[in-house]
């Protein structure tokens, strides 16, 4: 799954650690989500969308090849 987490985080001027603290997750989880190595659960995806004031579908989109 592709996502805009890194882009939105950097637009807010936050480090991975700061975002991790906002979401109450580990920094490695943020790193894995940003690098597309881990797809967050729906509750975490909604938390991210709410934090960045985005619609969830504007933040995440499935990889073309995996559809």
């Amino acid at each position, binding site marked *: 799954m592709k996502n805009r987490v890194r882009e939105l985080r950097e637009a807010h001027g936050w480090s991975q650690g700061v975002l991790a603290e906002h979401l109450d997750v580990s920094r490695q989880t943020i790193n*894995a989500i940003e690098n597309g190595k881990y797809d967050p659960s729906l509750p975490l995806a909604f938390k991210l969308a709410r934090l960045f004031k985005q619609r969830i579908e504007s933040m995440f989109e499935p990889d073309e090849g995996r559809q």
Partner: protein
Amino acid sequence: MAAWGTFTMGRMAIGRMDQWPAWQRWGALVLAWVLYIGGFWLLLDNRELVVRGLALLVIVAGLLLLVYACKAVLNERVRNIDRWQMRAMLPAFLVYILLALYVLPLVDQIATPWLKAAAALSPMAPLLFVAWVMVRYVNRCDEMERRQHLEASGIAVLVVGLVGMSLGLLSAAKLAVFDATFALLMVLPALATVYGLACALAKWRHRAR
């Protein structure tokens, strides 16, 4: 007052060890292992009560530093759940060492069967507590960490099971001889070691940079 201020500043500095330069974080990790192994060496090499007490303190300091340094090397901060886990596990760990050092050697001298069984099984009390702490800790981890713990426990069961089966087959073929008591005692440490290594590997692979 000034001493308390220095202590608080020191605690804060250790609490944010993830922000230290890399060489300091790795240095802290090496120091933690030196304290931990050195503490055990002191404990097992001496019979004097004072030295053994000192050794326990060194082990505790090493363990505390180990938790902070491991997290820091992975660019991870120590969270409230990590502190809770440390606070819960350290006393249990100390009780286990004390029981192993001072109660287990007495088992052979006890004649009453139920008392002998109670003394022999006494180290299980802190171990059961540690198991409960681990279950609660994993439940309070975030979703990706829980997946890592699940994968690590699966790997541990598979590796220990396959190695155990292989050794059992060699023993059945009379190609190797193993002490059954020793083999049974090694199951939990082997599971914990492989589980720990698999967890560390997964965390290293996904560490933040």
